[in-house]
Each structure stands twice: as structure tokens, then as C-alpha cells.
């Protein structure tokens, strides 16, 4: 089986879908001839032609609007917003049309679009190339939100997103494009090739939206996390010496509540880890759901380890990033009671 990093896996997903379905088109800023600033769309224009993989003006709202219009026509557009931090100009298109079109037309018109966008920090991108805005999209009824943590899932989830008939926000943690980063920024980069999830089938397969994965079974505490933080949580649990059950949520909407409830019901403790800012972050929703569903199983207060409620500071990013040391402290805190 081929070994792929996340960029190659995402590229392969789009390649497979463009070959299978001629209604799949790919576009965005620098996406066409050049193949994207992170190279995710490399070679697609050459292979499928300029009218199926092309560059766009710097206009995120225009990109989303064009995708929605194409979706209404019957295409399956996959657009790239170069950084998740750049998605805000497109908010009206996402909220007022993409998310609402099926509802407001009672199913007559739909926008089956996929919006790919690199998110998260750890590359010295400062406050405009590091954000994790996933919670914003989960608050908008009508959007699905997906965040993969490894190449195998990235390809299978992206194919599912493209095949899905609802609009999907597909956030790609850019720090793990090339390797499973565990938060130890001062250590040498580990490539994906040494990780089992880099074994990615060349052809078509799917990972269903709405299914969490258990990446580490454990008995003492449940860790709810996604994206880059999956790898950080694994390192943090190792360093804390805690037998943590780590769930990679993979999809935030729809959320795999059953897996979460079963795990917390078993462990009786819960730590939530995400890179995004804390207040009104997706962790707040998770904490509320765990409380609603598992209150009588809980043996200790739920703890959140997250990015601070500040913009992502350029030179201080490793003080901002919730690394394995903070995860380990969080695990100790949740185990203390």
C-alpha cells in the first residue's frame, strides 16, 4: 500500500473523485497551475484541465458564492480557502446560503460543496495564519464540520465530504500536513512515513462522517480531542503516566455522541483538548454534552486544555500552543479528585 503524508492523501482524494465524477471541480487562490500554497491540488489542473481545476481572484466570498451557484447547477465543487483565517469574508455566503439553502427552499435547491481550509498554528504564522475557527461553523445550523488527524482519515473523510449532499467545512491542521506533530516543537520533525496511518489506499474508500475513532484505549479518563491535538494528547498521556482513552472526534457536526457517552460512562472522567481559544470553543459544547449525558458517571469535574483566549501571538506561539506538558497537567488535574 502506498505511503502518503496528509498533503498527498488529500491530493489523492481529489484526484480519485475528479476521475470518478466529472461534476467534481476544484478551485481557489493559487490552486490551479501552481497546485496550492501547501501543494494539495498539485497536478490536478494538468490532469483534468483548466475548467475543472483553476485559480480564482482573491475573494473568499466570491469563491464560496461561485461554489454555491455551481452546486445549485449540479456540480460538486471542492474549494480551497488558503488559510482558515481568510474565511471570514465568506461568512455571509456560508451562513446565509450554503447552510440555509436546503432549508429555505424546502429541498428544492442544495449546495453540496466542500470547503477545504488549512487551520491551526505551529508554523509561526502569527495571528492571521494560525487560527482554529471550527466552533464558528458548528454554531451555524446546516454545516458539517470535519477535522482529520492523519493521512488515512484525511483521504477517506474528504471523499465522504465530497460525496455528501450537504455543505462540509473541511479543516486541515496544517502543522500535521507533513508529520504527526506531538507538540514537542524543539524535537526533530517525524515524517508520516513512520506512522501506520500513512498507509493510504491509492483508490476510492471512505471514512464516514460522524464517527469518532478511539486512538488509544484506556480505563482512567476519556480525552476528547481532534486534529493536531490527537497527537499532542497521546504524548501528554504518555508523559503523565495516565491510562487515558483518547477519542479522535474527526467530525464535530454530526458528532459521534454514542462513542463519547460510552467512553465517559466507562472511565468516569473527561479531559477536553483543542487548540482553539477556550471561551465558546467547541470544548464548551462537549463539556455541556458530557454533563447532560454522563453526569451521574462523572467522578471529577471536566477539564479543558485549550489555546488561550488571545490572538495567536507570532513569536510566543509555543507559549500559546497547548502542548503535551499542559495536557499532562490537565490529566493530573482531572485525576486528582
Amino acid at each position, binding site marked *: 500500500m502506498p505511503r502518503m503524508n496528509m498533503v498527498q492523501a488529500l491530493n489523492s482524494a481529489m484526484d480519485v473523485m475528479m476521475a470518478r465524477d466529472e461534476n467534481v*471541480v476544484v478551485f481557489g487562490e493559487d490552486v490551479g497551475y501552481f497546485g496550492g500554497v501547501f501543494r494539495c491540488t498539485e497536478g490536478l489542473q494538468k490532469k483534468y484541465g483548466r*475548467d*475543472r481545476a483553476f485559480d*480564482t*481572484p482573491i*475573494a473568499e*466570498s*466570491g469563491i464560496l*458564492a*461561485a*461554489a*454555491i*451557484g*455551481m452546486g*445549485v*447547477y*449540479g*456540480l460538486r465543487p471542492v474549494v480551497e480557502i488558503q488559510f482558515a483565517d481568510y474565511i471570514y*469574508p465568506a461568512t*455571509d*455566503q456560508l451562513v*446565509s*446560503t450554503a447552510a440555509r*439553502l*436546503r*432549508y*429555505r*427552499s*424546502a*429541498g*428544492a*435547491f*442544495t449546495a453540496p460543496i466542500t470547503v477545504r481550509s488549512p487551520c491551526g498554528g505551529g508554523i509561526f504564522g502569527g495571528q492571521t495564519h494560525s487560527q482554529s475557527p471550527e466552533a464558528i461553523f458548528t454554531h451555524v*445550523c*446546516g454545516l*458539517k464540520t470535519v477535522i482529520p488527524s492523519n493521512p488515512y482519515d484525511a483521504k477517506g473523510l474528504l471523499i465522504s465530504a465530497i460525496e*455528501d*449532499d*450537504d455543505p462540509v467545512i473541511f479543516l486541515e491542521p496544517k502543522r500535521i500536513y507533513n508529520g504527526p506533530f506531538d507538540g514537542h516543537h524543539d524535537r526533530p520533525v517525524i515524517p508520516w512515513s513512520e506512522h501506520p496511518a500513512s498507509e493510504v489506499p491509492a483508490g476510492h474508500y471512505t471514512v464516514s462522517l*460522524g464517527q469518532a475513532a478511539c486512538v488509544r484505549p484506556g480505563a482512567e479518563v476519556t480525552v476528547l480531542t481532534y486534529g493536531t491535538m490527537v497527537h499532542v494528547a497521546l504524548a501528554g498521556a504518555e508523559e503523565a503516566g495516565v491510562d487515558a482513552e483518547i477519542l479522535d472526534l474527526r467530525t464535530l*457536526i*454530526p*458528532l459521534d*455522541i454514542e462513542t463519547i457517552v460510552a467512553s465517559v460512562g466507562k472511565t468516569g472522567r473527561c479531559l477536553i483538548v483543542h487548540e482553539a481559544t477556550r471561551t465558546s470553543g467547541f470544548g464548551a459544547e462537549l463539556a455541556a454534552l458530557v454533563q447532560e449525558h454522563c453526569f451521574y458517571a462523572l467522578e471529577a469535574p471536566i477539564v479543558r486544555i485549550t489555546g488561550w483566549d488571545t490572538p495567536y501571538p507570532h513569536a510566543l506561539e509555543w507559549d500559546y500552543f497547548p502542548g503535551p506538558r499542559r495536557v499532562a497537567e490537565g490529566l493530573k488535574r482531572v485525576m486528582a479528585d
Partner: protein
Amino acid sequence: MKNAAPLELHVPEPPARPGEVPDFGWLKIPPAGSVARPDIATPPNEMRGHAYTLIRVLDEQGAASGPWDPKLDAETLRRGLRTMMLTRAYDERMFRAQRQGKTSFYMRCTGEEAIGVAQAMALDDRDMVFPTYRLQGLLIARGWPLIEMMNQVFSNTRDRLKGRQMPVLYASKEARFFSIAGNLATHLPEAVGWAMASAIKHDDRIAASWIGEGSTAEGDFHHALTFASVYRVPVVLNIVNNQYAISTFQRIAGGEESTFAARALGYGLPALRVDGNDFLAVYAATRWAADRARTNVGPTVIELVTYRASAHSTSDDPSKYRSAEEPGRWPLGDPIARLSGHLARLGEWSEERQARLASELDSEVLAIQREAESYGTLASGPHHRPATMFEDVFKEMPWHLRRQREEMGS
């Protein structure tokens, strides 16, 4: 250089406020038939003047003249007249229904009927339209049943949009009429996207979209023109300049220093500025733009200069911000009266026939209204079951919505 005087902010004002004498002297009206009709392949920079003039076919006496006369036969003209009159009859009945408390809200298109109706007739029924509100004439001209529209206005049990949308925000896949957005301008670049798809698929259908002059100030207007220009998209982009964005005169949207049509020039797009109350001019300009789109020459921007003769909506009172005499002083007249006068001049129509048709249409609308009310009204019900509100958020209902539906108790 030192300031000669302190800096001052210019805030545009309309020529007249309530109690003042209306003045439309700013609207330069060339004689009917005087504007040249360029070939559709004319490079945009060779027809820049068309963004600043006013294409007119019908003169004040109802005579048609000049190169833009589409030379429609009397039967087609009567069909156009009838559809405009039906639209007005529908509006009047729905307006009254709102005043009677049978629905929450209504918007009439009085004085703007030529735009929706003539343009629907100039386009192919297979073309996709992305309208803003106040284009019910477009939907009616496409033959969409009034009963469907009324069922939505009354949000009754047969409302195809299941009581989810405000009364005038129609959607019809069968009529190729896109779901009207209550927030403004989003649909304009979406129309461009639809037309890009049609080009990608080597289809023969084009798209057309409409936006008010007020919302040309939105960023999405710029995105639409940029994408339309860059990819030479088969789309017709219409700006309905009815002089008002609720209470705000068009100068606040940028109409004082230039025309709205002229916005197109910076994008390298051709612009036609048209007498929007002249059925023949609206038809001809739309056909010119549609032909251009259909033959891969590219997109066109049309500014339709008209006047919002009635209030913005049933929630609005224009006497608070404009002179009561203003509608009567509007120099481009009423589109129904003008087409009717033209047909009469041709010997194809008369005042008696006009009055008889108006009466027939009112009876027809009233009969349909009675049927619609028999399925329910917003005020008295019945409506769709509350549980249906959870449907269509997603294609398949996720667990959290199923749970909330149970929580609601239905």
C-alpha cells in the same frame, strides 16, 4: 499645501424631502429611439456611453422608434401587458390581505412590473434566474401558478416552503427561479457561479440575476462582476434602480457621482442603462445581453432605471421621508399605462378592453385567493406541523435534531 478651510464630510441628500417640491431634473432623458444599438460583439470600451445614457423605445405618445425597437407582434405585447396587469392585481390583493392580518408582510412591485415581465419574456424559460425580492412579475411571467405563491404568502398547509420563509421570498425549481435571499446581494455571485457551471458543462443555458441599486454597495456585487469578467461568464447582471433602499435615496448608494451601470466599465464589462418603465426597451436590452451571453461573448450589466411607486414593504411609510407628490412627478411614467397606450396607438387595444381585463384579472386573483385561504392563513392557520421545522437542515436528520424534535414534544 495648507487647508484653505476645515475639512467637511459630504452626505448626499435627495432633491426633495416631505413638504418640498420634487425635482427629477437630475435624470437626463434622451428622446426615445435616439440611442444607438451596437452589435453584441462590440468591445465594451467602444460603447462606454451606453452606461450614461438611457435606452428608450416608447415616447410620451406611445410611439415606438429607433434601433432598440424589438418589433414584437401585438399578441406578444398583449401577453406582456396582461402579465404586468396580473402582477399588479396580485400585488393589490396580497397587500390588502396583509392589511387584513392574514399574513405578516408583503412587498409590492408597483411601477416596476416591466422589469420582471419583459425580462422573463426576453430570456429562455430554461435559463436560470437569481432574483432579488420585488420580482414577482418574473415568476408570474414564467407561468408559475399564483396559488403556489399565495400558499407561501399565507404560510398555509400547502406552502411548499413549509412556513420557513417570509411571504415574498419565493423559490421554484420548476420555474428555474432561485430561492430569494432575505439578506442582500449574496445571490448575484451565486448566479455567476451557476453560469460558470453551465459553461464548464458546455450547456446552452445562461443565468440572469437582479440586484437593487442600494445593494450594489455590498461586496458581493464586486465579487459577481469580478468573477463574471475574469471567466467571461454567460450571465446577465441587472441592477434595478428604483431610487430607494427603504428610506435611503440612491445617492447614498453612490448614485450621485456616477450611474450604477457605469460600475461595469471598470471590470471591462459592457453596460446598458435602460428606461425600466419602457417594456420594449427592457425587452430589447435583455435580449441583447442574453444573446451576448449565449454566444460566449460574455456578461453584460444592465441598469434598469425605474421608480418604486409604492412603499418598500407593508412595514414602511414613505410619507416620512419623501414628498407625497414624488410618485406622480416621476418622469418615466407607469409601465402598464405606457404599454397599454402603445397598443392603443397601434389600434390593438382600447380603454374599454383595458378596464375589462383589469376587472377580469382581479376576479381571477380573488378566486385563487379564496382557494389559498381555504388551505389556511398565517393568522388563523392551519400551518405545517411544528415538527417539520427540523427537516431539511441537513439531508438526513442528525441525532441532535431528532432529540430536539422530541424535546419540543411533537
